[in-house]
């Protein structure tokens, strides 16, 4: 209702606030997928991992009353589920993209299956940081209520960008992902590095899931995630496998996701489902724009099948 007084400014502020609020799961999943793809595998099942993380984080918070413990458990659940992907893909002649689809179906199914008793009880939410204290406007104040997880994700993006370039394990990960022959010649255990990359990616995606259930929207139900995990995988291609660009791209996608609800609160209720589909259209448009029919993409790990 209040959005109508501010008109289109209200929509803009709501979109920016929404971008910050909605982008965190995209950010964590895309950072996780970047790690996995840098090791030379694609985990298309992070949508299932995200939902599983949301469920286990929420369940932990309900049972123990500790939301931060929920975040940790969500990460571990995500890592465990991704370990399944990692181990199955380590078998010969198994297609990693197909396993990702199976994990997508299995993970979401398992989360709904195990999470059914937790739909009704309410869990303690993660705390806010108020960064809007300098403004009198309640709109700006509510737009700048930020979760510590968002800042943590931002710091993580910077750290990963640095670590992939400047540390030993970053170099090993990239070597395995770019040329398994070279890595083999140097004596690295390719399978082990890829398992580590996939499990670490799953941990981050699980943490992203706990943000959904413990902060925003802050509930657990079967409609909680609508493809954010999948879109984050596409977003990694758009971000050219660069953690910092993943951060910018996540904000863009968060803004697109926030558009529908922002317009609705400003009184524009027509075409609600079409605005709701904005992130999917944006993802597809971005893929069409950033893909190339001829050459491999700049920054793409050489062993990743999704960019060839």
């Amino acid at each position: 209702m209040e959005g109508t007084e501010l008109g289109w400014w209200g929509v803009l502020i709501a979109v920016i606030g929404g971008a910050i609020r909605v982008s965190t799961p995209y950010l964590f999943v895309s950072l996780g997928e970047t790690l996995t793809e840098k090791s030379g595998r694609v985990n298309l099942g992070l949508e299932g991992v995200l939902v599983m993380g949301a469920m286990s984080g929420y369940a932990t918070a309900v049972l123990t009353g500790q939301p931060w413990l929920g975040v940790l458990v969500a990460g571990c659940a995500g890592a465990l589920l991704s370990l399944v992907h990692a181990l199955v893909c380590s078998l010969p002649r198994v297609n990693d993209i197909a396993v990702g689809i199976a994990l997508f179906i299995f993970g979401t199914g398992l989360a709904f299956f195990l999470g059914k008793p937790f739909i009704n009880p309410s869990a303690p939410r993660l705390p806010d940081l108020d960064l809007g204290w300098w403004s009198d406007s309640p709109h700006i104040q509510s737009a700048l209520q930020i979760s510590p997880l968002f800042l943590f994700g931002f710091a993580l993006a910077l750290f990963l960008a640095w670590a992939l370039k400047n540390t030993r394990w970053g170099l090993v990960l990239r070597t395995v992902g770019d040329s398994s022959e070279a890595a083999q010649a140097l004596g690295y255990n390719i399978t082990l590095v890829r398992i580590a990359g996939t499990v670490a990616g799953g941990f981050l995606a699980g943490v992203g899931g706990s943000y959904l259930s413990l902060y925003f929207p802050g509930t657990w139900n079967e409609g909680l995630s609508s493809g954010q995990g999948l879109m984050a995988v596409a977003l990694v291609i758009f971000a050219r496998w660069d953690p910092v660009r993943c951060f910018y791209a996540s904000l863009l996608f968060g803004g697109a996701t926030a558009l529908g609800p922002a317009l609705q609160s400003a009184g524009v209720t027509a075409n609600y489902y079409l605005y709701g589909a904005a992130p999917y259209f944006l993802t597809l448009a971005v893929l069409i724009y950033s893909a190339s029919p001829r050459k491999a993409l700049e920054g793409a790990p050489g062993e990743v099948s999704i960019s060839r």
Partner: protein
Amino acid sequence: MNSVEAVAINAAAFVITLALFGIYVATLGHNPLDVYYVLWLGSFARQISIESTLTNAAPLMLTALCTAIPARAGLLVIGGEGALVVGGVATVLAGMLVAGAPFLVGVTFMSLAGALAGGLWIAFAGALRQYRGVNETISTLLLNYIAIAVMYHLITGPMRDWERVLKTSSWSIPDALRVGALPVIDVHWGLAAGIVVCLILYVVMRRTTFGFGVDVLGGNPRAAQMAGLPINRMVLICCFMGGAAAGLAGAFEVTAVHGFASESLVVGFGYAGILVAFLSRQNPAAIIFLAIILGGVAASGGLLQRRFDLPDATTQVLQGLLFMIVLASNAAYGRLNVFQPAAWRTA
């Protein structure tokens, strides 16, 4: 391809899945044998359960083709859910156009409209891959979400039937154009259509020059290019055929089951179809049998949930588990000595 080996490995995958599921329900305090008995009871034990199994199998055959046909050309398409929804919506629109037409003309027109819509939907993803290099797995999955959102937009606004209060849905197609049941058994004509389409595509993929060319392309794209095969055209045709099959599934869901487009079209036939396609190892004839088996799992899901008080997601967990094990079983092909020709015979 050694088909005895494929049957044996698939059977083993089923057994392992059921064993794992049995262990899980045992931890919940149920007797696994009771659970298996209920699975049998709900899928194949009685005429009514067989009818329910076959009613579920009909759309699965067609959505499985949506993954299987492009897969033969080397594409991993998972857009069956979206193509089914788009096909269903197109069928309703076509039904509005031909209200009053003779039965056969009207139904043929509606089915073709559904197939055309689904075919173009997946061919679009094929074109994006061939001409822009967009990964078809991701684009078809996104197109699923887009198709569902567009359908919800249409059935809550422009195409909404305001007379139906209890359920949000589109207009209904004319009653005179509703498709009935097959003779003898109470299963709609979509089953016959599914079997016929699977057999036709089996012949096309296995017994024609086009099918041979597609197998060359799927096996080795560079060889296909060297041989001068029209790769882009073949990929687009494969995507169109697969999408048309899924669109036809949507058409029959509308003409034979629901009579209108609604959320009832979005029940996971597309995703279960991917599993059927992988189980069949992309063979259209094998799809017929595997769709019936998976249709049985879907049919007994409701009974299983009620009898043992399990959540709705039980069927999805079973499907996901089976999918994972089937993919892992790929590693077993060519490893089992029983199925290899003896050395003295090949020499």
